[in-house]
């Protein structure tokens, strides 16, 4: 088994925007939709998920030479479940209110495809350093996604950001945005905006390239 693949720096940068877990790979939809009604629970969820992702990636990378191909998914799941249980119990012990507010969504981190995909794509094939960089990069990408969705929903729906008042009293609140349909609307609109933005960038790059080629010739 060789350890070749993208370098640690590449893995780190890709996870944040170019291969953003939510906006590019559409993974981790359940927490993205369920816990983004306000910024605080969203950040707690990101922290718990990042803890699980980083620990699972590092551990899987350490034991990668022991993995048997047909049992690997089982090993990934058990590894992830162990760390999710730790995260869940720590939250319940030290952030009881938040733990209650997040409800079943902390245990549900186990089935977050984002984590198992990182174990499969990166950690089971590359060294510990690369797996760590990958996990941190993807966690940052998850942070960008959840924070952006939660920011839009909390400001439009409640006029606050992390509980701090942002909009003046007179501005009507769009309560729908903190309700479940608002999650789908916000995610859809943000996805559309990001797709439009990257399509425009790609077009610009495409129209710029032939010109430089011509000039060079």
């Amino acid at each position, binding site marked *: 088994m060789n350890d070749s693949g993208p370098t640690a720096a590449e893995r780190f940068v890709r996870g944040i925007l170019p291969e953003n877990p939510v906006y590019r790979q559409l993974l981790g939809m359940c927490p993205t939709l369920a816990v983004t009604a306000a910024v605080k629970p969203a950040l707690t969820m990101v922290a718990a998920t990042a803890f699980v992702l980083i620990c699972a990636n590092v551990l899987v990378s350490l034991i990668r030479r022991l993995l048997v191909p047909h049992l690997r998914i089982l090993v990934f799941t058990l590894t992830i479940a162990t760390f999710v249980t730790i995260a869940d119990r720590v939250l319940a012990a030290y952030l009881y209110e938040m733990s209650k507010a997040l409800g079943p969504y902390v245990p549900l981190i186990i089935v977050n495809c984002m984590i198992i995909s990182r174990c499969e794509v990166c950690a089971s094939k590359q060294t510990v350093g690369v797996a760590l960089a990958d996990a941190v990069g993807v966690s940052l990408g998850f942070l960008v996604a959840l924070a952006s969705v939660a920011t839009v929903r909390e400001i439009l729906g409640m006029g606050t950001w992390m509980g701090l008042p942002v909009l003046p009293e007179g501005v*009507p*609140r*769009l*309560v729908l945005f903190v309700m479940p*349909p608002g999650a789908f*609307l916000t995610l*859809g609109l943000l996805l*559309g905006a990001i797709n*439009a933005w990257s399509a425009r960038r790609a077009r610009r790059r495409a129209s710029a390239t032939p010109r430089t080629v011509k000039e060079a010739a």
Partner: protein
Amino acid sequence: MTPATPSSPDLEAPRLHVAPGPHLVSGGRSTRGMMVDVLVGLAPVLAAAVLVFREWALLQLALCLVSCALFETLFARLRGRGLRGRGLRGREASLTDGSALVTGAILGLSLPWSAPWYVAVVASAVAIGIGKAAYGGLGQNVFNPAMVGRAFVMVSFASVMGAASYVRPGADLSIVTQATPLTAAKEAAGAADIPGLWPMFLGVTNGSLGETSALACLLGGVWLCWRRSAAWRIPAGVFAGAAAAAAVAVLANPASPLGVPHHLLAGSLAFGAFFIATDPVTSPLSHRGQWLFGLGIGVLVITIRMLSNYPEGVVFAVLLMNAAVPLIDRATIPEPLGGIPSADREAAS
């Protein structure tokens, strides 16, 4: 020397008018023509609304028409730029086909007289932007745009759109000092608080702007069906479904102050049946499908009235049945004349 290329490709494209046969009589039908028919059909409803609610009706309607037209222009411009090339479908065509005005008129007439200005603006933005433009414009939308906007503000601004907002004690206009008939029925459950059938038919009751007068809706609706801009089977189905469900509701609870005729005349059933459910984009194509669609709306309206916290259910009934339209269309594909019956086709394949 290069051959002369057209500066704008869409200038060269032939103008095709797509219509079902027989083409001897189909020449005059256009989206614009149908939208003008709807606006004419809405005239009696508007007249009734102005008679009942005075300047409130005009203000609300003007606000919705203007904001729908503005948002239509804005979103068409956004999409035109996104598609590359100048003037690709959308820019001029989307405003002049009149569909934004119809959406604005129906939206305005479905709002309470007391709704603040931002309700109309937000509802218009959602109707045109999320209800229509996000799906790819007129003809692609799954849900009736006006109802998407109405549902959005109904849920978002519950405090200014709820049953209590219709009533303003001590107002100059005596009608708006009473609860709407369906709210009265829901809360008081005493027959004395329900207006008589004749006032409900004429429309001298409280309610959303366009819904109070069943007579005006009937006049405009019959005109629409006669012009064939609306499929008559849909409103017929709505009334039949609502009557059947109301009969069941009355049998189940004989003490209810609402009889079957009350159910048919109250709320926005008539307005919804003739003007909202008949939107050609979001209703089924086949005759059988139109009956099914109408019946479903009628039954759902009464179900929501009787069993939910909302006094009226036209908005959600229409949206739910809109979602079922692709299924209905698939299940009711008619046999072509001389074609192979579908059972035989399945057996052959």
